[in-house]
Every structure is written in structure tokens, then in C-alpha cells.
């Protein structure tokens, strides 16, 4: 679905991506992990045209990403950031239906689609008439998902989607998201710094470090056949309550 070829990107002096090659398979959930500054978010932002490579090429659906075609390409991608990235001046429904309305969907069609997605994302339908400030963090996240799914895109990009949630809500949402991804059969790319979350949600993990891909594979592969001592270190760095208590 996505192909990055020899992609480099600098911010001032810092090299964010260093001739990175990455292929993201269609219909699967890929989790980008790695330490801070590894380039996870840069990769994700490049997939949706928020960043452009200094050199190299990004291909989406076999076509290179082009500025002229960007609007159309972005509409085939759902994009969710931490807390949903909701616009505070619009209600949840206003946020979710923004693009559909712009594209001229009629009211009945929008309402029907919202009902369907609210059920799918387990959000009470009434909550859609509230403003983001009136919703809980988990609800905001669900609204963000509904907005991303509104046009039924082939691809979902999620940047630290569960970053700001408390552990219980997070746990619950992780479970529901896995179920959702399984049902929807979409290409999902998500960025997280939580290895367990990546392993739980992702069919495929991509471990980045210093703007390069260190290893790509299933969680089990990364655990059992680390390509580099750092992979092992990173995969096992998280302290469990068991060992801490």
C-alpha cells in the first residue's frame, strides 16, 4: 500500500530520516515503534503529505504522492492523532461530518453513516451532538476514529492514538481497536511508543532508530530473532508491575 524508497529528511541540522526504505503491506496493521526521535512520526506524516522528503520517493497505492493529487489521495486515508485532533468549535458530529458535508453528502446519508460508525466505535449516538470539551478523552478518541472512517477510506493512519488516555480506558480501547481493525479489513499504520500496544494491535512491527529501519517483522520475530542487540533491549525495556512490585 505504501512504499518509501531511499527517503531522507532533515530538520535544520538533525537528520530525521536517513535513506529509509520501507514497504507497508495492504490490509494489515503495521505499528511503527522506536525511541524518541527515531523518525516514527516523520514516516507517518510523510504518508499523508504533511512532510515531504528532501530526497527519495513516497508511493501510495503504487502512485507517487503528488501535491496536485494530494486532496484526493488524502480522502482515501483516515488520519487520527492523539486525543482525536478534534476542532473545538464544532460538535463531535460536526467534526466527523466536516469532509462529507464539504463533498456534498446530504443530511440523511450523513446521519445514517454516523449512526453506523457510532455503533461500530461504541460511542453513544447522543454524544455526537456534544462539543469536544464536553467529551471524555476516550470519547474524543472514538470521535476521531469516526471522523477518520467517515468516507470509508482504505487506509487508517494513527499517530499515538491512545497516548493521552488513562490505563483502564486505554486497555479497553486497545481491545476494541483490535476488534475494529479485524472487522474493517483496512490497511492500518500506527505510531506508538508502547511496545505491548504495538504487539497487541500490529500484525507487523517496524522498529526504527536514527531515521532507519532496524527490523521489520511480527512481534514474535522481533523478540525471538532480534536483528540487533538494540532490538532486544527495546523490546524488553518495559518494566512490568510484576517485577516492580
Amino acid at each position, binding site marked *: 500500500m505504501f512504499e518509501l524508497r531511499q527517503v531522507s529528511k532533515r530538520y535544520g541540522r538533525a537528520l530525521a530520516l536517513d535513506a529509509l526504505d520501507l514497504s507497508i503491506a495492504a490490509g494489515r496493521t503495521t505499528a511503527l515503534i522506536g525511541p524518541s526521535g527515531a523518525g516514527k512520526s516523520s514516516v507517518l506524516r510523510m504518508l499523508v503529505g504533511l512532510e515531504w522528503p528532501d530526497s527519495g520517493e513516497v508511493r501510495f497505492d503504487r502512485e507517487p504522492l503528488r501535491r496536485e493529487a494530494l486532496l484526493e489521495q488524502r480522502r482515501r486515508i483516515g488520519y487520527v*492523532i492523539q486525543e482525536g*485532533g478534534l476542532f473545538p468549535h464544532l460538535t463531535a*458530529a460536526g467534526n466527523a461530518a466536516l469532509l462529507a458535508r464539504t463533498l456534498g453528502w446530504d443530511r440523511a446519508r450523513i446521519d445514517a453513516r454516523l449512526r453506523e460508525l457510532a455503533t461500530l466505535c461504541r460511542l453513544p449516538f447522543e454524544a455526537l451532538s456534544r462539543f469536544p470539551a464536553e467529551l471524555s478523552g476516550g470519547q474524543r478518541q472514538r470521535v476521531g476514529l469516526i471522523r477518520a472512517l467517515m468516507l470509508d477510506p482504505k487506509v487508517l493512519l494513527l499517530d499515538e492514538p491512545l497516548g493521552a488516555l488513562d490505563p483502564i480506558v486505554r486497555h479497553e480501547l486497545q481491545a476494541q481497536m483490535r476488534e475494529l481493525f479485524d472487522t474493517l479489513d483496512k490497511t492500518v499504520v500506527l505510531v506508538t511508543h508502547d511496545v505491548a500496544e504495538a504487539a497487541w494491535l500490529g500484525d507487523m512491527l517496524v522498529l526504527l532508530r536514527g531515521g532507519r529501519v532496524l527490523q521489520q517483522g511480527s512481534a514474535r520475530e522481533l523478540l525471538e530473532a532480534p536483528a540487533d542487540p538494540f532490538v532486544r533491549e527495546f523490546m524488553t525495556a518495559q518494566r512490568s508491575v510484576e517485577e516492580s512490585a
Partner: protein
Amino acid sequence: MSGVRAMGRWAGAACLRARSVFPAVISAPRAVIPAKAETQSPSRSGAGVRYLRHWMTGHSSVESPAFAGMTAWGWWAGVACLWFVGILIAATPGIATAATQDATHQAAPRHSAAAHVVIGSKNFTEAVILGEIGAGLAREQGLDVEHKRQLGGTRILWRALENGQIDAYAEYTGTLAEELLQVPGADNAALREALAERGLAMTDSLGFDNTYALGMREARAAALGIATLSDLRAHPQLKLGLSNEFMQRADGWPGLRDAYGLPQKPDGLDHDLAYRALATGAIDATDLYSTDAEIPYYGLRVLDDDRHYFPSYEAVYLYRADLAQRVPAWVDALRGMAGRIDAATMQRLNAQVKLEHRSEADVAADWLGVDAPDTRGRASRIWQRTREHLALVGISLGLALLLALPLGIFAARRPRLGQGVLSLTGLLQTLPSLAVFVFMIPLFGIGAKPAIAALFLYSLLPVVRNTHAGLTGIPLELRETAAAIGLPPRTRLWRIELPLALRTILAGIKTAAVINVGTATLGALIGAGGYGQPILAGIRLDDIGLILEGAVPAAVLALVVQGVFEAVERMLTPRGLRIAARA
């Protein structure tokens, strides 16, 4: 209140002195720059707000939450609607006429067939009285006459006369020769010739010469036997108290001292105090104008300028030469004034206005022996001023928004060019407001138009700057999200960025309105009317009551406007943002 009183006193003193005989004071030697009255903005919005409320409630229902947040379409329609309505109201014939109409309170009988003539006057009492006399003469001829009174300076009247926006005004030959025609020392024949080249003409002297002079108390002068300036030489012990300006000007005291060989060492003092100092004997002589109202009041003797040191400032009416064809009877009547008003008469008329607080129109009508024109009641005057002021502010601010909002958006989109836009509008703000008003006269004449043009320029900066700041202050992740979810640029601007920047933009509009209302009071100087009119007259006449007649409604208007703007802000601020602000 003491501030207003102090302003009045200061300005009153300035008025007396500002009628400098010397040509050097910028372009308007006989003008007074009034203190600016701090006021705030009006806004006409009733219909717009109702419309908005309809818009904002219309779609909010739980049954269709899809549309509950969609009222942003309405906000901007509403903002546009608000100002469009404002402009429409302001532009309705009644108010537009009111704004451009003269500032006198006279309700001249309007015969549909009668020729319409316009007389102007400078911003000091004697000029306004002469203007009223000229207007009275026209009325006697059955003409429909308009008096554009107390315009801000010699240059303004001169240009208006040249352009045909006024037909006549009273001028002094000295000013004409030294400053307007720039032929110092020319005799009246030469002046007439120079005027004729410009399609203008003048009457013979009305009978008095309003030049600088020195004056003493009659009794003291008689006791010492002093009648002329030369006589002062023999009395070196005399205490001279001269106004500071007269002391310092090369063609004031230093020139006079050298011309007459005067031995005295004068003290500088405030001109208002000089009369009182004369009365108590603290000083023996001071400088004055030969038609000052205070001369008879304090029993002063004007010393004869026997060496003709001071240039001659004979009062005449200037008028457009084509007037002789258009309204020959009025020209004859103006000419007939030649020699009719001597210095003592002018002093008396000035005193009736300045010291007895009668209106110029009454004094002029009495002297002419005709009925005074109807004057309006105070409420009617204030209503008239209010309409004029609202029109000035509403139209200029409305037009400014049409340019400033797009400019602000442009500046936010193109940071580099945007800096240029911001600097340019900032530069406009640094221009002295009176100068901008005067610059607009060649382009727009006198009246409401140049004032609106000047106020338009002043309104740009706050709106451009706040629009820019509001848009660039939106959190990056929201701007990026709007782009990343595939919204087209136009939708991003109208549905996301402008609503999020709305509060900042409204604050800018409010600032512009405040600046605008305050500055609009200066419009009276170029014949635009408004609250500046009574303030200007009050300052000129040192009449607190008149000043308050402009200042109090202005303050009330300010409060109303403040309230209206806050209501508009509350109404337009998306509910989601208000909740977010609380949370």
C-alpha cells in the same frame, strides 16, 4: 471633569493666540487643533444579530447532530451581514446627507427653485460671525444657503473655494498675500489680479484690520499720554507682558523692538492671564488682535502702529468669480458690506458671542436686522451629530473590513509578503491624523468623504494585525489535521481557521472601532460633522456646556458600542470554544 475643563481653558487660550498674523505656522495659521475626545465605536447590528441568532439556533437539534456543529457557515455570513447592514443603513439617503451636510444648525427654507450656495468659515469666532453675516445676506436674497462652519484651517477653506465646494468665505488680505498667493506686500489691485487668474474675486475691506497690536488700559495710556507704539519708547519702565509665541517669533517682539527701538524687557505669559494681569495692573501692555472681544470689555486702548510694522490684515469676503453670474444679488450684497464693519463693531460682535455666550447666528442676524434662522433644540442637534458620527464610523469601518480581512488572511498565508503588508498598515497608523484628513481633501473635497477615507486608513491596522495574529495563533496540530483529513483550502479557511481566530479578529475590529470613533471627532475640522462639531465649537468659545454636548453623547455611545461588541462577540463565539475556555 477637571480634565475637560482644563482642555477647554487650554484650547480657549490657544484659540485666541492661534490666529497668528504670521504666515509661518504650518498650513493653517489661524486654525486650532482640538484636543481629541476619547470615545468609542458605534455599531449598527440589530437586524444582523437577529439574523445570526436564527442561523445559529436553526440547525442545532439532537435529532440531527450532524448539523449541530455546522453553524460556522452562519458566523461568517453573519459577520458579513452585520457590516453590510451597517453600510446600508449608513448609506440611506437621510443619513448620508446628514453626514455630508453642513454642521450649522440652521434649517434654511429650501425653495426648490432657489439657487444653492455654500459659505465657509474658519475655526474661530470672528470668522464664524462673518460667515453667518454672509449667510444671512444670502438668505435675504431668498437663496438656499449652507454654512460650512469652523473648518479646520486656511488651506482647507482655500482649497474648498478653488474646487467650488464652497462659494465664499471671509479672509484677511495679509493671509492672502503672505500665505495663500505668496506675494508678500502686494497691494489690493495685485491681489485681485492674482485671484482673477484662479477664477476667484474679493470684496473691498469690510472696514476693519485684524492685525497684531499692543494694547494698554485706557486710563493708564491716557495718564501717560501714550497713543502710538512710538510713544512707548519714552517709557522704559513700562512692564510688557507678551504671549510666549509673540515673544519668540522673529517677526513678533524682536522685530517690533528693532523697528521702534523699544527699551522694555517684556515677560512671557499665557495670553488668557495677560488680560487679567492688565486689569490688575500687574502689567502695562500686552499683544492682542485689534478686534479681540476683550478690548472693550477690559477698556483697553489699541496703540497705533504708526510705523506700519505689522502687515495689514483687512477683512474681505473671497468668492468664486462665477458667482457674479450665478447669484449676482448675493455678490452685490457681499460687496455692499465693504466699509460697514469697523474694528469697534467687530469687537462688539465678538464680545457678544465670546463673553455673552450668544450664538453667532443670532448675533449676525441682529446686526443685519433680520430674523435669526431657526435653531434646532439640543436633542435634535445631538441626534443629528449622532447620525453623522455613526455614518462616519460605520461606513469607514465597514469598508476597511472589506479590505483588511482579506489582507490579514493574505498576510497569514504568505509570511514574507505579509510582513510587508503589516509594515505598510503600521506606517499608515503613524501618520498624524489631522495631516491625513487634510491630505484627503484634494482627492475627496471637504465633508464626510475625506473623513471617511482617512478613518478607513486608520481602521486597517488593527483588523489586519489581529486577523493575522488570530490565524497564525491556531495550534499547529489543528491546522495540520484540517489539511491531513483532506479538507480543501477554502473549507479549511472558512470552517476551521476563521472560526478559531474569530475572537482575536473581533477584538481587532473592536480596537479599530474605538480608534475610529475617537479620530472621527477630528472630521469636524474638514466639514464632516459628528460629535467633533460641538466639541470644536465649545473649545473655540471656551464653553464647557458645548464641549459636553459632544463629549457626553460620545461617552454614552462608547458604552453602547462596547456593550454591542461584547454581545456580538458572545453571540459569534462558537459554543464549543466557550466550553473549552471554561474547561
